[in-house]
């Protein structure tokens, strides 16, 4: 489904050149639940950005269903992001000026559907993460765990078949973390969603099919 071939990512700033990823080869199959582990700064978020088509590699190729992403134009790329990929960010990235339900609706705004359908889908997604009663709050009025769940609802509202989760349980206590892990496992098992999850928690990684370990931009093991 997602295929990374000799992927490297370099960041050049004024003074330094950072190799965030170095020659990564990775094949992720349909319906897999994979965790990515490694110390801070080893390139986990960078890897997720490449898989989520948010960034292009410095060298190597990223292919989705066998088609290299550098073959897509902006419009087509946006469409793939919209229809096939759900992103849960490390820092939630909720829009502070929008209510919970409006935040969740965002991916659906870029699809052809009625306001009513959008609202219905957003409420269903919020229900699924157990936030059905907080739909008209603003992000600042929620706890960290609740914000994380809004971010999950937003990532799954469009029923993507790939879910990229950057430390979805990192900011949560273990009970809340388990709950969220439950939601992800549920999506993976019941809907066959392919999931790539960054985590620092070996307990969470154990529950996934496969662990990819990164160290200093390189794949270890």
């Amino acid at each position, binding site marked *: 489904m997602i295929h990374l071939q000799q992927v490297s990512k370099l960041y050049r700033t004024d003074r330094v050149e950072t190799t965030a990823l170095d020659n990564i080869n990775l094949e992720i199959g349909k319906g897999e639940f994979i965790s990515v582990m490694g110390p801070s700064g080893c390139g986990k978020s960078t890897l997720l950005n490449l898989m989520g088509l948010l960034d292009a590699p410095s060298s190597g190729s990223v292919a989705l269903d066998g088609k290299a992403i550098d073959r897509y134009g902006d419009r087509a790329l946006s469409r793939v992001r919209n229809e096939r990929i759900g*992103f849960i960010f490390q820092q939630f990235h909720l829009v502070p*000026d929008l209510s919970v339900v*409006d935040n969740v609706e965002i991916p659906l705004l870029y699809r052809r559907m009625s306001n009513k359908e959008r609202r219905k889908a957003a409420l269903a997604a919020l229900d699924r993460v157990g936030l059905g009663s907080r739909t008209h709050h603003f992000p600042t009025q929620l706890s960290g765990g609740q914000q994380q769940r809004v971010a999950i609802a937003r990532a799954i509202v469009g029923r993507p078949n790939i879910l990229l989760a950057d430390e979805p349980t990192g900011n949560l206590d273990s009970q809340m973390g388990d709950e969220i892990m439950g939601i992800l496992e549920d999506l993976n098992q019941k809907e066959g969603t392919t999931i790539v999850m960054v985590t620092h928690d070996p307990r969470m990684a154990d529950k996934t099919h496969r662990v990819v370990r990164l160290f200093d931009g390189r794949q270890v093991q």
Partner: protein
Amino acid sequence: MTRHLLKLVWNRKRSNALMILEICVSFLVVFVVATMGLFLLDNYRVPLGFEWKDVWNVRMGVGRNEANAGDAAAQQATLARLFQEVRSLEPVEAAAGSFVVPFDQGGWEGSYRVKGRNVDTGVDRATVGFDKVMGLRLVAGRWFEEPDATQSWEPVVIDQDLARAVYGTADPVGKALFDPRPDERPFRVVGVVSDFRKGGELLPNDNFLFRFSSLDHPEGQAFRNLLIRVRPGTPPAFEEALVKRMQGVAPDWSFEVRPLPQVRATAFRFFLTPLIVAGTVAFFLLLMVGLGLIGVLWQNLLQRTREIGLRRAAGASRASVHRQVLLEQLVLTSLGVLIGTLLVIQVPILHLIGVLSSQVFTAGLLVAMAAMYLLSVLCALYPSSLAARVQPAEALRYE
């Protein structure tokens, strides 16, 4: 998407309020200037009712001896001799006396009663030949003739406006005008001319009434202005010759010659200068507001890069981000324009300005709206294209 944007704008109302206010104020300023301009333009399109190109005005000051003596008959005699002299000059095609001078600031406004209601009108007292000098177009009846001076009624010539105001569609010629006053001969209409716009092209078309001033029979206030139609192409040097000849007839009178094109230019300056000043002020205001708008949009963009990155990650294309920024700006502009319109609408509702026609008013509104939308789009173009260029991975990295 529109609903989403409305919500976004509403939820950001505190940071948007200032921009809406700026747009509203600019809208009002543009409306005022545009309406002023359109008002003058609207007036300008209407026919003037006279021809001014080859007409000269001679302002006469009565000699001290005659003035001191209060000797009306002597003044009258001098005037008659002056007329004779002027008419004998080769470049002069026609000459007439008049109380007021077209385009000139000075004027004479009368208010008369017609069947119990008041009719306001501009008034002039003019001599025989005034119609020739000014190129008036008679639509009914005739201009004054000397025998009119000795009738039991006072002859008047009215313009079509006044005719309509008093008689509606009926033929006014031969009819009495206005309710009679005890101390005056009753007015009787002898002729109707097409709308006469003494104030010139820039002022609204008003009613006009000519009363008769006889050269033989002094009555009322004597005219102090000579209007002379000269042959086309008469050189300005004739001005000096003219004064010299008149001075020869009346050595202690004073004469000041002003070609009507010059009087007209002065009048135009008088009415256009405020418009130009206001227009310049409005232009700089718009410039300031425009630059401010760009600044605010830019600032917003910096504050909202993460939101933009998030939208891009969620499937917004560059084009839809571009569109969103423009649309948000248009929503804000619409709010400012809406508030401005609600304020401006009070003018006709409360009958604040009578002279504004509803067409001019509406056109002023449309111009102001168009100006604000144009300004907004222009100012949003660059920031929105910057927004479209936001790299999602970059934008979402920092906390």
